[in-house]
């Protein structure tokens, strides 16, 4: 009889003997993985949305007067002296009127009595994609506001601030749920293995006396932890996928889900979560063996 055959038989026996606590542990690992992976999924999708918003980010600098060609060169130099930018567009008063008129579409007749130069001239600054942080955008905006002849700078400040705060909050929730995953998984697995060890004390003592090696005695417990990690994380991620699929199907149609393409966890993240869960459960099992198994 080879080593792995006997060890696997032992694992099966352990599962049968302590099936209730094993089931509780499996549920705990599954739930912990589900909670963590859910928030991580939301977080990564929010980051993707953030990236997409960043792609469309424009800082509009409203000017007191329409700048002449020389002043345009001066302003361009001033702007690029702060940071490299993707593009700078000067919008004249009439261009601003035309754009506004296009945006009004069917209601453009309300503009008929207005002079074509009633809107201020502006500069549309498209920052580089490397300019991502809220702080950097604020600094750039403050800098632009101090340029001579500037009335104000707009970039959807409130909305961006709220979005970044939400992303920060999510990152904290991801961290907390990750900690929850670590604690519950390690402790629950350690506790279950402890119960198994206590329940099989007589057998373990006998195994030692008849010449079982330490590996022969330890390996089934380690495999038990490993199996809990593998099964628990796989079930947790499967539950998350079903939930994701359900939400996508349920909330499809006009709304947030159609503005952005929400994606499930990529294969490498999926594998990383499974491997990390296996590692945690094996660590839980190992600590329990070290503490309670006297061989």
């Amino acid at each position: 009889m080879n080593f792995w055959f006997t060890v696997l038989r032992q694992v099966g026996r352990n599962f049968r003997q302590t099936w209730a606590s094993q089931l509780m542990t499996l549920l705990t690992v599954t739930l912990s993985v589900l909670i963590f992976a859910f928030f991580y999924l939301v977080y990564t999708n929010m980051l993707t949305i953030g990236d997409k918003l960043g792609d469309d980010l424009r800082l509009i600098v409203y000017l007191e007067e329409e700048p002449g060609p020389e002043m345009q060169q001066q302003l361009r130099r001033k702007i690029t002296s702060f940071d490299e930018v993707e593009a700078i567009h000067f919008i004249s008063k009439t261009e601003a009127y035309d754009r506004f008129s296009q945006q009004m579409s069917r209601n453009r007749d309300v503009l008929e009595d207005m002079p074509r130069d009633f809107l201020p001239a502006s500069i549309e600054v498209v920052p580089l994609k490397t300019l991502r942080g809220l702080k950097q955008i604020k600094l750039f905006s403050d800098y632009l506001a101090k340029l001579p002849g500037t009335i104000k700078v707009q970039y959807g400040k409130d909305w961006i601030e709220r979005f970044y705060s939400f992303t920060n909050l999510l990152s904290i929730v991801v961290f907390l749920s990750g900690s929850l995953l670590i604690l519950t998984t390690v402790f629950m697995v350690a506790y279950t293995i402890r119960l198994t060890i206590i329940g099989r004390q007589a057998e373990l003592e006998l195994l030692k006396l008849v010449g079982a090696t330490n590996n022969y005695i330890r390996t089934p417990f380690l495999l038990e932890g490993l199996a809990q990690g593998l099964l628990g994380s796989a079930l947790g991620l499967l539950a998350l996928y079903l939930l994701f699929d359900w939400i996508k199907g349920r909330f499809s149609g006009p709304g947030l889900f159609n503005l952005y393409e929400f994606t499930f966890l990529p294969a490498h993240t999926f594998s990383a979560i499974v491997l990390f869960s296996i590692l945690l459960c094996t660590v839980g099992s190992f600590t329990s063996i070290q503490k309670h198994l006297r061989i």
Partner: protein
Amino acid sequence: MIEMIKVSKIYPPDVTALSDVSLTIKRGEMFFVIGMSGAGKTTMLKLLCSMETPTNGLIEVAGQPIHTMKGSALALLRQKIGVAYQDFKLLDDRTTAENIAISMEVSYKKPDIIRKRVIDLLEQLDLADKHDTFTDELSRGEQQRVALARALANSPPLILVDEPTGNLDAITTERVMKLLNNYNNFGATVIIATHDGSIYRNTPHRVMELNKGRIHTIHGGE
């Protein structure tokens, strides 16, 4: 096979179980350890299989200092020692066959070899009909024989038996002793701790009497 030099065992706080026991048992010898209850017979067997460690002295089994060995070296040596314990150490939630198979499983014997060997041993010990019976449903005498079968399963070169006939009738006692004699004739060293006079009274083998942890007499043998 076995060397014990000035071996003592004192259990806390100060209960002396063995005191200055020096002894050599040759390979292939059958050796009886007798004495009253508390004389140190069981302690001596426990020291020989490293279930206990001596307080003082040296114990060598097959040329190896078993009392200092650990890990896989000790495990491998223990696979060569079959022990039938006085308290049997049977697993109540396993069948008779499973209890006997344990000692062969740890040495990775093939399942069909284990199956055949278990059936063979059960027949030799008149337990063939108890193959699938849980051991907590057996009588004391039957449990004793299962413990003995487990000790013999690997055909070990060293067999330690503690009170093998304590719960047996005369016919079964004779059957058990015949089995142990067979193993001895095939070369196994057999050490029997007993206070059953019927099994050592007319023996040609050496008999050591322990008294309060000390060797009182050793007689017999060639």
